[in-house]
């Protein structure tokens, strides 16, 4: 008798609605998207001993910054390493492991906070949680593409939009829990971590029970697959190891890396940037509102752009991202000189929508180029671009700003070089995407499709 986690047990019975699969995927992505809101713990975690103010033995912000960085690095690494395993075992097993790692990561981190040992926190939230992030991020992607061959961009966009939305839930939830658990002797971080670990585990298990794979050969009613390859769409499949050897994989790696690095340029510095570029015009509260607005557009862009890509094509979608992105980044210094806050906000929200759109459109782009056979595993390897961008983006932005200030540049102008640099990075992505061609037929897998 097949076990609950066997691939055969995950095959949907006739009559199963494919519209149950996006909520299963969202149950995972809405939880792991919490990573984007981890910064709400930074300040309280600098007061674990002092409670009302930082004590000499309390952790420094610089030590705490590593928690998120480690998690993002392990996200990319685990997605790359476990991609094949995720494909072969099906989404249910992968989601379960992701739930255990992500929920468990919180519990281990809680122990680290309680013992005031930063290395346990790194191990818990950074390593264990990061592995949960990576496996969880890729686990529903290929399943959604198989259930929605008629609209793969929209389907994966929905799930990846959940990752953007996860921070919107986690940020107020974390603040509420810390307030609830806080006492005169504690800031309540330990209890908050334990509670969130339990909640996230349960919600992710909802996805584990709900998700199903379509039966072999299943197609939506009325859907007719393309008989011949389109300009970029392959009718064959490329195995994950073979895809890794193609020029197209590395072109797409560069496309994602440049798009993400440029987006982080704004995300990382949004609040201080708007206050420093428009001194006296934007309060700290309004800057917080600006960050919230960016989150909304980051999330919405994931669904809107990836759904649009089903109609205009993936390559064209990225051409829009890069062309418009170059123009908008290059215009920011001039907008700063004009002193127009509304125009600056409008430009930034468009840029952030394209940042999110870049994440959400890439799985469908991979499916077009390499086929569906190993798309999840290939996506996993491509996510190493995110890990690189996660380190490269903030380093570039912060280093250049500090260098500019050290050279005597006025604060409102300290971001100009960064913005021009972001435009240059997008030019690199533009060129990489411009030369995108279908994979040579010699790379196509011959024979029966492999599970992974």
């Amino acid at each position, binding site marked *: 008798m097949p076990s609950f986690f066997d691939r055969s047990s995950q095959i949907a019975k006739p009559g199963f*609605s494919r519209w149950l699969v996006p909520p299963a995927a969202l*149950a995972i992505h809405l939880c792991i998207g919490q990573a984007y809101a981890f910064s709400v713990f930074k300040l309280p975690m600098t007061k674990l001993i002092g409670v009302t103010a930082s004590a000499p033995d309390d952790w420094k912000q610089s030590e705490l910054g590593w928690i998120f960085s480690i998690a993002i690095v392990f996200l990319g690494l685990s997605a790359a390493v476990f991609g094949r395993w995720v494909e072969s075992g099906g989404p249910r097993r992968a989601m379960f492991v992701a739930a255990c790692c992500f929920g468990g990561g919180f519990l281990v981190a809680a122990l680290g906070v309680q013992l005031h040992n930063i290395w346990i926190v790194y191990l818990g939230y950074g390593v264990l949680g990061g592995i949960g992030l990576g496996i969880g991020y890729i686990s529903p992607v290929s399943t959604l593409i198989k259930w929605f061959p008629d609209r793969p961009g929209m389907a994966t966009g929905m799930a990846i939009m*959940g990752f953007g939305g996860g921070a919107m839930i986690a940020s107020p939830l974390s603040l509420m829990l810390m307030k609830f658990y806080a006492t005169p002797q504690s800031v309540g971080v330990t209890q908050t971590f334990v509670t969130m670990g339990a909640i996230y585990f349960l919600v992710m298990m909802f996805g584990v029970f709900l998700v199903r794979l379509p039966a072999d050969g299943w197609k939506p009613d009325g859907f007719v697959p393309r008989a011949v390859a389109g300009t970029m769409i392959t009718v064959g499949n490329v195995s994950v190891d073979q895809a890794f050897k193609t020029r197209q994989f590395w072109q797409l790696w560069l496309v994602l890396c440049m798009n993400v690095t440029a987006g982080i340029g704004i995300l990382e510095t949004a609040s201080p940037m708007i206050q420093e570029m428009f001194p006296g015009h934007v309060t700290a509260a309004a800057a917080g*509102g600006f960050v919230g*607005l960016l989150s909304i557009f980051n999330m919405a862009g994931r669904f809107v752009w990836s759904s649009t890509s089903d109609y205009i094509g993936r390559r064209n979608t990225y051409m829009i991202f890069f062309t418009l992105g170059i123009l908008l980044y290059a215009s920011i210094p001039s907008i700063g000189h004009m002193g127009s806050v509304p125009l600056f906000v409008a430009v930034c929200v468009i840029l952030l929508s394209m940042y999110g759109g870049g994440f959400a459109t890439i799985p469908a782009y991979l499916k077009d180029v390499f086929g569906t056979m190993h798309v999840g595993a290939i996506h996993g390897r491509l996510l190493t671009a995110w890990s690189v961008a996660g380190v490269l983006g903030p380093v570039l932005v912060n280093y250049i700003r500090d260098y500019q200030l050290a050279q005597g540049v006025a604060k409102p102008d300290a971001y100009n070089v960064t913005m021009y640099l972001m435009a240059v990075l997008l030019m690199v992505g533009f060129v990489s995407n411009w030369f995108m061609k279908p994979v040579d037929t010699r790379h196509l897998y011959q024979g029966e499709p492999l599970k992974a």
Partner: protein
Amino acid sequence: MTEKVTKTSPALILLAWAIVGIPWLWGFSQTLQKAAALFQ
């Protein structure tokens, strides 16, 4: 002999979407309130 086809109930689909959609809408409304500070 053909297998009996049981269609997924629309209520189940609605429930599944509600379980993920309600917390999401709550988070979205919280963020929207925060974002409103930019326009005040």
